[in-house]
Structures are given as C-alpha cells and as structure tokens.
C-alpha cells in the first residue's frame, strides 16, 4: 500500500512539473505541448503578415498607429460586418458594409412566410438593422449586398445567426442567390466556429454550375493573404491560417462571447458575357483549439484519475488466500 501511495505522489509531482514546464510558451504563441499539424505550421510560415505587426514590434508608436488604421482596412474586398447595438434583441442584427456602396442589404431566410423569405433593408451610414424572418424564428440567415456598375458586378455576402430555433441552413445555402457564389459547405454548427488550422469546404458556382480550377483568395484581418483552387466539382478546401497574434491565453476564450474572433474574407472573380464578376464571403474565425489550453495537463490529470482507481483492480487478500487453498 505504501508503495502505491508513493507512486501516486510521484505521479502528482511529475504532473505538476509537466504543467509548469508546459506553461513556458514559444515565441509564436502556441502553448508548448499542444498538437499542431505540420501542414498548418507550414502554412503559417508561408503567409505574409500585415505591416502593423512589424511596426508594433519595431516600437515606433506613430508608425504603429498609422499601421493599425491600415490594419483595420485589411482588405480591398467588400465586407458585411456585425456592429454592436442590437439592444439585446435576439431577432435583430446591425451590420456595416465596407468597400462597397450598395443601396440595400438582402436577407434570405430558410423558413417563414413566403413573402419574408427574401427581404431588403436599406443601407444607412450608421449601420443597417436587419431582422430575423420572424421574432421567434432564428438560426442562420444569408445576407448579401450587390453593386452593379457598367461591366462589373460585385457581391458581398455573410451569414447572420439569430439564436432562436429555426430550420437548418442546408437548403438555404444551396439556393441560388447571385451569379457568382461562394457557398460554405457547411457553415459552422451553432456554438461552433471556423478556427485556425481547421479545414473547411466551400463551393464555387456561377449561375448554379460548379466552377472548376478557379482561384479562391483568402484574406484575414491579421494579414494573411493566400489562395486555394477549386476542384472539378467546384469545391475548395480552405485551411484557416495560424495567424492570431500571441494573445494573453487568459483572453483566448472570453467567458461570455466564446473564443476571441478574427475576421476573414474569401473572394473569387470570374469573367463571362463581357462582365466581370467579383464575389466575397466574409465571416469570423477563432484561435486554434489548443490556444489557451494545455493538453499535457489534461492527459496528466486523466492518468492521475486512473491511478486513483487502480487499487480497485487489485485482488483482496482473502481472494489470494482462497486461491492458494484451492491450488
């Protein structure tokens, strides 16, 4: 028994040492002792990063301030981004449009009265307030903005999630909403998110037909610019880059809002019938699943629990005596 207690104490000590060692983190912000695919690490190394990060590290406050402004305008592609101020109403969202001057936002719903499945909301400089299809019907709604000039059609799209119950967006996503489309296949599940180093699929379509061998560009607010190519079925597998700044791990998961979010945009361009089409889909992504977490500590406590239960597997002395008698 004494030997077993010593074993448990040693394991606890080893566990504590492992955890303390794992707390020291390398310069790229990834906690030591966490898993990363070599592919995602390689992808991370190949990415360009915004000059804001370089200016900040150089310690020049004026340059950093200017670059921060530039960093806020991190893409030339059109965006529809959420704004604060919906007043706690679950059926309302406030959105801003950037890099595009549309007259209205179009909101598509998966279910509800027929005349409300596709609605238009006029764009205002202080933000466009959109509503769910009905006060008690939520889930994903598709939002798009369109600008058409001579010879050029530009469409920005995003998804807005309203937290009341509602039909899944599977059919809504596949419904044709514009000429050139980037269709998430699927969107993240409720309470889920796109994450660094995750792979997600998107479909590229033109007039409802898959677009093969077409480039889909990805840009993130942290400065990554990269591209992926669609296959014969128009499917593109997007690997989200590991480009969140090394944040305080305590803030990696905000208790109320969930994981810290960054913005990204996917864009594709296509020429047909003498017109140039540009479409962009923007949404948010979160830090890698291991940020602010320690897998080694988790495994250590798991092993500790196993050791605590190990005495249950030992035979009682009575059993041994009985066995001896039997033999």
């Amino acid at each position: 028994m004494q030997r077993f207690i010593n074993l448990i104490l040693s394991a606890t000590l080893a566990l504590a040492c492992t955890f303390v060692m794992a707390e020291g983190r390398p310069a790229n912000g990834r906690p030591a002792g966490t898993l990363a695919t070599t592919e995602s690490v390689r992808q991370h190394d190949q990415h360009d990063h915004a000059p804001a990060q370089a200016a900040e590290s150089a310690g020049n406050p004026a340059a950093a301030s200017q670059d921060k402004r530039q960093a806020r305008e991190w893409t030339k592609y059109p965006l529809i981004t959420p704004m604060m101020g919906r007043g706690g109403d679950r059926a309302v969202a406030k959105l801003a449009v950037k890099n595009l001057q549309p007259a209205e936002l179009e909101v598509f719903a998966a279910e509800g009265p027929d005349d409300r499945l596709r609605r238009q909301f006029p764009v205002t400089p202080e933000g466009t307030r959109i509503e769910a299809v009905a006060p008690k019907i939520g889930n994903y709604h598709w939002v798009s903005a369109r600008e058409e000039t001579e010879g050029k059609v530009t469409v920005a799209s995003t998804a807005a999630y309203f937290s009341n119950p509602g039909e899944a967006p599977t059919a809504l996503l596949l419904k044709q909403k514009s000429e050139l489309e980037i269709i998430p296949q699927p969107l993240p599940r409720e309470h889920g998110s796109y994450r660094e180093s995750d792979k997600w699929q998107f479909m590229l379509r033109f007039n409802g037909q898959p677009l093969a061998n077409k480039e889909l560009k990805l840009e993130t607010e942290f400065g990554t610019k990269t591209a992926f190519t669609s296959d014969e079925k128009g499917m593109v597998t997007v690997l989200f880059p590991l480009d969140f700044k090394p944040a305080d791990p305590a803030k990696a998961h905000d208790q109320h809002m969930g994981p810290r979010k960054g913005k990204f945009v996917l864009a594709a361009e296509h020429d047909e019938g003498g017109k140039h089409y540009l479409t962009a889909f923007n949404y948010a992504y979160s830090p890698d699943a291991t940020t602010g977490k320690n897998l080694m500590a988790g495994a250590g406590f798991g092993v500790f629990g196993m050791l605590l239960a190990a005495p249950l597997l030992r035979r009682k002395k009575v059993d041994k005596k009985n066995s001896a008698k039997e033999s």
Partner: protein
Amino acid sequence: MFKSIFPTLGRFRLFIQIFMLLLTVYGSNVVGFYMAEKISNALPALSCAFDQQNSAYCVLIPTQHQLHHRVGEAIVKAQQFTFQMVLPLLFTLLTFFTFFVVLSKVFCGWICPLGTIQELINKLGRRLNLPLRRFENGSVSKVRPVKWLMLIVLVLALPLLAGLGVTPHATGDAYCQVCPSRLATTLLTANTDQMAIRTGSSLDFAFGAIANTLFGFMLVAAFAVRQPFCRICPMLSFNATFQRLSPMRLVKKQHDKCDKCGICAKACPMDIHEIAREHGTKAFHEDCTLCGRCVEFCPDDGVIQMKWGPLTLFGSSREYYKQRMKGEMPDGTVKIAAALRKPESGAENA
C-alpha cells in the same frame, strides 16, 4: 428469426446500446450537421454537444443554458419575469418529456453512450477475470445522494447563480465542465480538444482538472465496478424525478422465495438491493436504469416484469433464466472466466 439473432434480452440490449453509441457519437452524418437537424436538443441521455459529429444534444445542456442565460438574466431584469423567461425552459422540459414518456429510464440503460462505454469496459474486466467490486447495502446508500447533489448544484444552482451574476460565468455550464461523457465522446471522434485543460483562469483549470481526473478514474474503475459514473450522474436523478410519470416501468410481485434468493440484486449493475426485498412501486428504485438484468436473472415465472402501461414487454421465467445462466453469471462474469477463479457471488455458490 429475431430469437436466433437475439437469444437473450441482454444480447438485444447490447445491440441497441452499440447502435445508439454509434448514432449518438457519429450520427451527424445521418441526421444532419446543424442543431436544427438533430434527433433532439433535449435527449434524456448524455449525448454530448461538444462532440462535433453527434446526432443529439443531452437535456442537461439546454437546462443549464436556459437557467444561465434566460432565467438568471431575466430575474436580474425583473420586469422581464414573464413567459419570455419560463417558456424556453418549459419547452425544453416538454421536448425531454416527449421522449421520456415513451421510454422512461430506458435512456439510461439502453441509449446513453457513456453508460454503454462503462458497460463495455466492465464486460472486458469480467473477461480479464479482474475482481468485481460491489456496493453493499450501507455503502450504496452513501453514494446515492451524490447524484442529487450533482443535479441540484451543478445543473440547476450554479448556472442559475451565474445568470444572476453571483458566480463566475464559467459556472454557467458547470456540469458540462466536469462531465466525463464530454471527454469520452469527443475522444471517440479522435478529437482531443476537450481533453486539453483551459489555463486562462484558476476556475477553468480546476474544472478541467476535476473533469479529467473523474474521467480517468471512471475508465479504470469501470473494469471493477459496474457503471461507476451512472451512480452519481445527474441525468439519472433528472430522469428519476419524472420516472413515475412514464408508463414504462419495472414491476415486481411479492414472492415467498425473494428473501432467500437475491439473484436479481446481484444481477443489478446499480447494486439496488431493494429489488430483492421490496415489491410494487418500491421495487422500481430511483437508481434503476431499466436495463432489465433483474428480469432476466429472476428464476421465477412472472415475478419481475418490464411493462409499458398494461403491456408486458418482458417478464421473468424459469426457462429463460436457465438459458441465460448458461453463458453468464448474474454479476456479469462469463462462465469461462468464472471457472478460473473461486466463485464470489451468491449465484455462483448456488
């Protein structure tokens, strides 16, 4: 045909358990990816929402979520103390009850993925000839209140207090933070996210440490103790609260031999000793998971029955008992393993 594939209730239950384990853990490929496509968002079994491939959410998730976000926060905004606050919670309970009224605690004994995992581990333990630890009368009564504490403190009180702003936000889903099903089902999908402990705050770390220790303990303890976590599971107490409202139930008639026999109690994976002593409604104990083992191993005709309303779904019989005993002892020990060691249980001595 049916009888040749499933000669015993135990074999049939094992089939259902494995089918439901696969469905609950990996079922998104069948039922759909989004929450709206799940079998239910209020299933009376530990089907974990943290598992990205699951087919249903367990009822404890929306219960905690609504107590935290709806009830707690609405009480703070006292003017909103209306249907807006109560209705979502009632809706969750109604969804849960729609399932529960049909199958009652069958969700624990036949469908819960964590229950199945523990049972499979214990079957392995029996085949490896590891010792079986049973809870005797005194010790089992000390363990039983823990499941009510888990329900009241972790599922109801802490999420509500978090909504009221009394306890930290991390306690908003306090039970999920320590639930071993979260770890078990996500690991089954080769996802180690939930195994990793959050290091951002001491409370997050403490929750993670407790969860992983509990999970590790459960995995090893299940080799020697039948259903170690089920005994303290808040889903069991949640279901026990409503068990009298369902037509699905266990029925036991009074019989002269019961006091001397006690095989049904040995067969019970939850160590419910009352099943041998009591009859009538008292025999359908709060810890019963309706697994049906007591019915299978009762050697007398019609003494214990599983009933749905007036229908007898399965009843004890001497013929069935003899057949069942050919392959397995009441405590789950297989005959080959039992032959290798000294018998411990009453059934083996008998």
